[in-house]
């Protein structure tokens, strides 16, 4: 049984039909890449999967259970968590409070403590700034905080929206090292990134989106080999940094 099944999904972003008849499957334990340039519909797709956007038609199932009409906060509680694009941290809360928000709804204080320790072990720089207001962090640190906050929920499926956007190469690699290790802990990942090369370096499979439809799907090797597709539709971003 697939962890996430998206069938014939149509979704609007504002007044624009940004996702058209899109079907996609994510299996338990995979890392799946969503590729495509600006406006390809990656973000709209992720927002629709996690419930922030109501689809015009089509269905979403998570863990074998239809969730198309489930409220977004319920989906989050079921373990379907989006780490959003941009610097969407709670700027007026401390780093610690941001992380605790990630584990919202979890009553077991020992478990929260454990997750906090393991997340801070992975992002030691956040540990150094634990009492600081999140708004005072640097851009890279805020991106780490978004990842760390999502991991505090220990999601069954983590949706990552552009985790490397605007980051220095060193930081990008640090974050991708964390992503690569997630399946071993039981966290399945659906990863949207404009940086095709990086995304395919951690993913097993991928989908290439263009104007809201799936242009290509296949294993990471296939997609990487298919340089014509990569270059034709993804431009310079297909090349390694």
């Amino acid at each position: 049984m697939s962890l996430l099944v998206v069938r014939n999904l149509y979704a609007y972003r504002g007044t624009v039909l940004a996702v058209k008849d899109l079907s996609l499957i994510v299996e338990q334990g995979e890392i799946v890449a969503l590729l495509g340039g600006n406006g390809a519909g990656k973000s709209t797709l992720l927002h629709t999967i996690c419930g922030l956007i109501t689809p015009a038609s089509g269905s979403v199932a998570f863990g074998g259970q239809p969730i198309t009409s489930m409220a977004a906060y319920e989906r989050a509680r079921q373990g379907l968590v989006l780490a959003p694009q941009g610097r969407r941290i709670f700027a007026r809360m401390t780093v610690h409070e941001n992380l605790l928000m990630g584990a919202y709804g979890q009553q077991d204080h020992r478990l929260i403590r454990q997750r906090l320790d393991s997340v801070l072990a992975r992002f030691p720089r956040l540990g150094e700034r634990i009492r600081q207001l999140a708004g005072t962090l640097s851009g890279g640190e805020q991106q780490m905080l978004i990842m760390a906050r999502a991991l505090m929920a220990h999601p069954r499926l983590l949706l990552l929206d552009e985790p490397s956007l605007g980051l220095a190469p060193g930081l990008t690699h640090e974050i991708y090292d964390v992503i690569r290790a997630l399946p071993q802990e039981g966290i399945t990942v659906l990863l949207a990134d404009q940086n095709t090369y990086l995304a395919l370096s951690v993913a097993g499979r991928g989908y290439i989106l263009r104007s809201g439809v799936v242009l290509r799907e296949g294993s990471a090797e296939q997609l990487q080999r298919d340089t014509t597709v990569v270059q034709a539709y993804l431009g310079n971003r297909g090349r390694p940094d």
Partner: protein
Amino acid sequence: MNDQPEAPVTPRQMEVDLLSRAWKEFVRNPLPVIAWLIFLVLIFLMLRNLLPQGQQPASYSPEQFLRQLLFGLAQGSIYAMLALGYTMVYSVLSIIHFAHGEVFMAGAYAGFFALSAAAQSGLLASDPFLSVLLTLASGIGVAILLALLMERFVYRPVRESPPVVSLIVAVGASLVVQQAFARLFGATARRYPTVNLLAFPWLFPNFGCDSTGADCRGIDLISGRYDVSFLGFNLRLLPIHAVVFAAALIFMLILWFYVARTSAGRALRAVAEDRAVAVLMGVDANRAIVRIFALGGVLAGAAGVLYAFYNHQVSPFVGFLPGVKGLTAAMLGGIGSVPGAVLGGLLLGIVEAIVPSVLGMSAQLKDVLVFGILVLVLLFRPGGFFREITAEKRG
């Protein structure tokens, strides 16, 4: 003609230049000048009242000041409690909860019925402390109920509309509630039953004694008024003012603890900052909004009962002025800021109590003063008076 220096700008010319520039500036934006003129007139009036004139002592005495300061603190803590309601709703929904004064009024009314029932059943005489608690509890309960009804049937249906829609709808709701109360319970003001709550006999051994002088039960916290000599000042003290101030402090501390230190309060702050992301963390935003209104109801209901305790009466229209002044206080502190609401409320209460008599104005002009302040704040500091002090760091 090289030895001739260039025609220097005469001081006279510079003056004219400066004057014409100042005049242009004044025509472009006359507000600052007008504000300064008003300010200077006020300073003049204040000095005239504060300084002794010839042989006569100043018309404003330090005793007056102390008495008004205490009253102002009590009144200000009522405003602060109301301002917190406005500011919390604003920070989550970006709307002005204009019907908040009606929540306050409903609390005062519910307290009136509870207290009257206690007076009739004899509970008030036998156990005044329990009666006061019951009064407070029913005021808070009814206020929460009304606040939640408003959230569900007034604000939620227009939540996605522009803010001006919810403002108009809120004004309508406010009128509906006022008129409903007037039709149901009569439009005339009703007297709050007199409560004699004697307490702290060990602190005040010479107060509240019976005719024999053997049994002393302390001071009357609610209805007492005492003439006290303190450091050479002759003061008339009303313990109720201190009670209101202390009660408001306790309520605000509980609120602070809830919002700053509990997981549910953290969720409220998350919703206030970024509703979509809070939802992604599993927070039910609707429930958070309901909680915000309930918290506002707790504070407004308690404030309504406390206010009625020292004003001794309640009417369907008693919520309007305190409500608008609570909003003014929230604006004064910068709407959306919790410390700003508390500071703004206390400041407004104190200013309203002290400034009219310092300026030699009639106390009846205090509302003019308050709303004058509101206009000035909106004109010159729309972000609030304490913006620099209370501003939270933003990313």
